[in-house]
């Protein structure tokens, strides 16, 4: 068997074992948080909000909250694991071995996607206690969940590569990711906003991820699905190349 393939499998096995070993940190918290969102936004506040595009507010929330959990899980999985490896210096186990950069990137991204999907499925199952979500286009749902998890895993890896301390790990998540998530159309349709704010919202890449995913559920969304998918593919390719370049040049990990 190809040695790079074995190294990839080894890294994935190691990372999956880490996710399972600390499942109370990796799998449980998003379930609790998203359940609270369903209760507070869906039940309490949602009961005061009318249907959106003919869909109950609780059902409207489901794709957004699933996607929110996927994004957070994929991102935090990779950034915390990679930075942890840097901090404890066990990243050197990979650097001294004949592992290619793409194997390291692929290993981390794969486990980021896996955790994102597992958490997404769990949150979706929780949503079934509150509403009866239907999925119109399962293919679109799967494509958007994988691509979104890939984009945020790759972004998390860049953060992990550059981070010098735990503050820098948390900074991007707290000051950039969280605002983008909340302004990404998870809780509302941008068509309800004034035109100016609709245009501002369109600068937020998360809007396209959430809406593309929502299209998979309901067959409609606020933006073009093809453009959203194209943007995700473009971001995945660009971030992949950036990560490969960073690792090849040893930025943030060598010297």
């Amino acid at each position, binding site marked *: 068997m*190809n040695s*790079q393939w*074995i190294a990839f499998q080894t890294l994935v096995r190691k990372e999956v074992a880490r996710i399972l070993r600390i499942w109370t940190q990796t799998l449980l918290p998003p379930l609790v948080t998203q359940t609270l969102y369903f209760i507070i936004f869906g039940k309490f506040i949602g009961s005061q909000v009318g249907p959106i595009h003919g869909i109950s507010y609780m059902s409207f929330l489901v794709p957004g909250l699933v996607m929110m959990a996927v994004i957070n899980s994929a991102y935090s999985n990779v950034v915390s694991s990679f930075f942890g490896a840097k901090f404890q*210096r066990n990243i050197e186990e990979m650097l001294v071995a004949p592992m290619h950069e793409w194997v390291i990137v692929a290993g981390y991204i794969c486990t980021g996607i896996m955790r994102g999907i597992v958490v997404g499925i769990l949150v979706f199952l929780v949503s079934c206690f509150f509403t009866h979500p239907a999925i119109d286009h399962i293919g679109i749902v799967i494509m958007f969940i994988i691509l979104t998890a890939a984009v945020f895993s790759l972004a998390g890896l860049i953060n992990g590569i550059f981070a010098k301390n735990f503050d820098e790990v948390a900074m991007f998540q707290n000051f950039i990711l969280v605002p983008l998530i909340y302004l990404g159309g998870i809780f509302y349709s941008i068509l309800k906003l004034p035109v100016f704010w609709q245009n501002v919202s369109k600068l937020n890449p998360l809007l396209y991820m959430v809406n593309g995913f929502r299209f998979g559920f309901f067959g409609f969304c606020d933006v073009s699905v093809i453009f959203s998918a194209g943007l995700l593919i473009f971001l995945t390719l660009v971030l992949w190349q950036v990560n490969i370049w960073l690792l090849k040049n040893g930025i943030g990990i060598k010297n």
Partner: protein
Amino acid sequence: MNAIEINNLVKIYKTGTRAVKGVNLTVAKGDFFALLGANGAGKTTIISILIGLVNKTSGSVKIFNYDIDRQFDQAKRIMGVVPQEFNFHMFEKVQDIVATQAGFYGIDRVTALTNSEEVLKKVGLWEKRSSIARTLSGGLKRRLMIARALVHKPEILILDEPTAGVDVQLRFGMWDYLRELNAGGVTILLTTHYLEEVQQMCRHAAILKEGEIVRLDSVKNLNKLIQQETYVITVRNMQPLDGIQSYAPVVIDEHTLEVNLNRDEQLNDLLIKLIQNGFAVTDVHPKEHRLERLFLSLL
């Protein structure tokens, strides 16, 4: 064939620090080679360049003829590395750490588990295979580092101060194990602060000072460079020193003398003189190791 060939190696860090200044070094296949030097001399930088943790500024490095600029994968495959600091995942199990490292070297899972069992038994850690690494004592963690470095059966073992902070018993045990590996054909390159370690195990040594090699020779020849050696002599009863005044002895206490001998003077002659003058000699040993003295004189 040479195991390691370093030509005009230079490393300048972004801060402007010139850590390595044109080092040339050759380590023969099967050698037991030491890199000596004070902190900041460039030992760890050289080793880090060899193993791929630091990018060199210029120069060339070949490992068993594999140029690290063009064939680093092949070079890495035959190197095992024991870094100075513990760098394994503290919350993983002992065997997982070793088997995972094998996997990173492209060894399939079944072989990785077999190899890890073999090396863990060799270093006496098999009983602890299911323990979390964090719970091991310092000495056992050091053994784990060695087991991890050997799991892919490397031809060169590179050790950066492997016995730092290790108790005497374990250090001796590790020396025996490293000698056994070397006898089995593994080339060993180590850095150490323990000059005794170099004298006991290594055949060649390079002494580094401020990023340059100031002396490179066999340990045997390095020992010969010492012009004078101080011996500590324990006697049963102190006697008058008149008969041995030519050696300029220094009385330390009522049972101990210190005497400096030049290279052209024989220890035997001194002992005969002592006995002739009524001293009952119970012990003689050098005050410091020869290399230690050379090391200090060069730095």
